[in-house]
């Protein structure tokens, strides 16, 4: 495990140095991400300027959701690129090369491309998060602090799980991947707002099928010290992030199934 981590650091450093060769592209990319996600948030600001609140959620609260998800997703985004390209890797034979190496395929795919441009998203998300806490009255007990950290971690794992799902699917097909983006990017967008504002079927889907709400909405309620309009208990809110972790582990298992399928069909 330690060894795998060391290898990852190595992959990441090399990938970084590769990106640094194209310095202008790196700076522009980071700046683009910062501005792109920035504009997104300006949209939210404009919304609140016009309507003042979003069914009982204040701007600062929504900003907290938004910032937290962006920070978690920035981690994922810098690790998950390899899974977006499994189809291409299979076609070019590069995936076979990964199987020729004495390492897990997941580790190699994560290490394939560490994209530092995502730093832009991380900075923007972190900025919004900190800004929101200035206006929120959060009781920062050690429990709440730990919950925040666990939520970000489990959130990043959960999002990574979604990308692993996409990679797994491309062992079978290359055609439905665009559709899957509705789940990943669409879901991530949706999770930037409190789950309670959505319709029940949508809430149920993103809690029970894809536990997106478990790594954002429920724990954030506990952090903000709000009672849930949907009526969940505090204990559940604290435990919820673990479902994100569980989803990640499940995704890894499904990946192994996909890998077994690939290795028996070779297509």
């Amino acid at each position, binding site marked *: 495990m330690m060894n795998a981590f060391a290898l990852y650091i190595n992959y990441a450093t090399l990938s970084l140095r590769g990106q640094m060769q194209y310095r202008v592209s790196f700076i522009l990319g980071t700046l683009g991400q910062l501005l792109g996600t920035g504009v997104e948030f300006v949209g939210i600001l404009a919304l609140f300027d016009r309507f003042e609140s979003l069914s009982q959620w204040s701007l600062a609260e929504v900003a907290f959701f938004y910032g937290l998800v962006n920070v978690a997703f920035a981690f994922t985004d810098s690790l998950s690129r390899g899974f977006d390209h499994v189809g291409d890797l299979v076609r070019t034979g590069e995936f076979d090369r990964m199987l*020729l190496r004495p390492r897990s395929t997941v580790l190699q795919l994560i290490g394939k491309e560490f994209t530092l441009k995502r730093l832009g998203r991380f900075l923007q998300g972190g900025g919004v998060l900190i800004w929101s806490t200035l206006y929120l009255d959060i009781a920062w007990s050690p429990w709440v602090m730990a919950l925040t950290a666990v939520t970000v971690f489990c959130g990043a794992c959960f999002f990574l799980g979604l990308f692993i799902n996409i990679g797994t699917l491309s062992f079978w097909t290359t055609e439905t991947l665009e559709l899957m983006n509705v789940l990943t990017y669409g879901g991530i967008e949706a999770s930037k707002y409190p789950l309670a504002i959505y319709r029940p079927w949508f809430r149920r889907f993103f809690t029970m099928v894809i536990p997106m709400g478990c790594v954002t909405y429920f724990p954030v309620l506990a952090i903000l010290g709000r009672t849930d309009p949907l009526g969940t208990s505090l204990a559940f809110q604290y435990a919820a992030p673990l479902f994100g972790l569980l989803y990640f582990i499940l995704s890894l298992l499904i990946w192994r199934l996909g890998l077994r399928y690939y290795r028996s069909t070779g297509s």
Partner: protein
Amino acid sequence: MSHIRLENIVKTFRIARRRPGLWGAFHGVLRREYRTIKALDRVSFELERGELVGYIGPNGAGKSTTVKVLSGILVPDSGRCEIDGRVPWRDRIANAANIGVVFGQRTQLWWDLPVIESFDLLRDIYRVGSGDYARARDELAALMDLEPLYDVPVRQLSLGQRMRCDLAAALLHAPSVLFLDEPTIGLDAVSKLAVRGFIKRLNRERGVTVVLTTHDMDDIEALCDRVMVIGHGRILSDSTLDDLRARVTRERRLIIDLLDEDQTIADPDVSFVSRSGNRIHLQFDPDRVQTAALISRITAKYAIKDLFVENPPIEEIISRLYDEHELR
């Protein structure tokens, strides 16, 4: 105990049948029809430690499928296979640490990185200790003159330089088996010789077992004592190069440089193959006529500048073998 053992390996693929035209493509989305092809049909062979074997056959014969099974990428439908007592597909990671694979068409090095950094990364991927790594790297570098290339990004290497680096990259973890898939493809004559020389030394001096897949029969001629020919997923022939030759054709070539360009040669025991200028290629069967007798008969009858006897080129032997089995 043999180093590599394959027993009745069978591998079939299901291939989606495509219908022509737009309607066909649409139809394919709704309902797919498959046909199965047998990529490997009861393939068996054994290799001893330190053998250097040529593995040849036309495209699509099953060569790369065999290599994929041996390297643990593909799981066969049935049959048994062991390398150093390990089942490759069941023990992929342990097996991968024990083998090296080079594809002539694709590099395993990182395109944008200097060569030495690719090597360093491979050291970590294969968990090679730093002492062993430095020794292996320096030895390989000395054998193939790699040090001047260390700082060059892989994308800037010539094909020959890249192949030398790829060979070294596959050997840094001191594998006991090396699979080479067309290692000389596209190389210039000098690089080809260098690569062949290196493979030979590696095999002789370190006892690495080498399986060489190639379409270049000069590779086979220069390197391999044993040749396996595969076609339609079946091993058609497994013998020494000389035996293969003797089995497919006993014929020899008689090449004669005439003094006089207008002359022709007629003899009941030879048949005409080709002529360019005053050089004539003839063919004869050494079982029907003694080589010495034939030569003295011809030299007595014609004015000849030079004369020599050759085996027919290996390409012809292979192509005759393919024809026999209705390949290609």
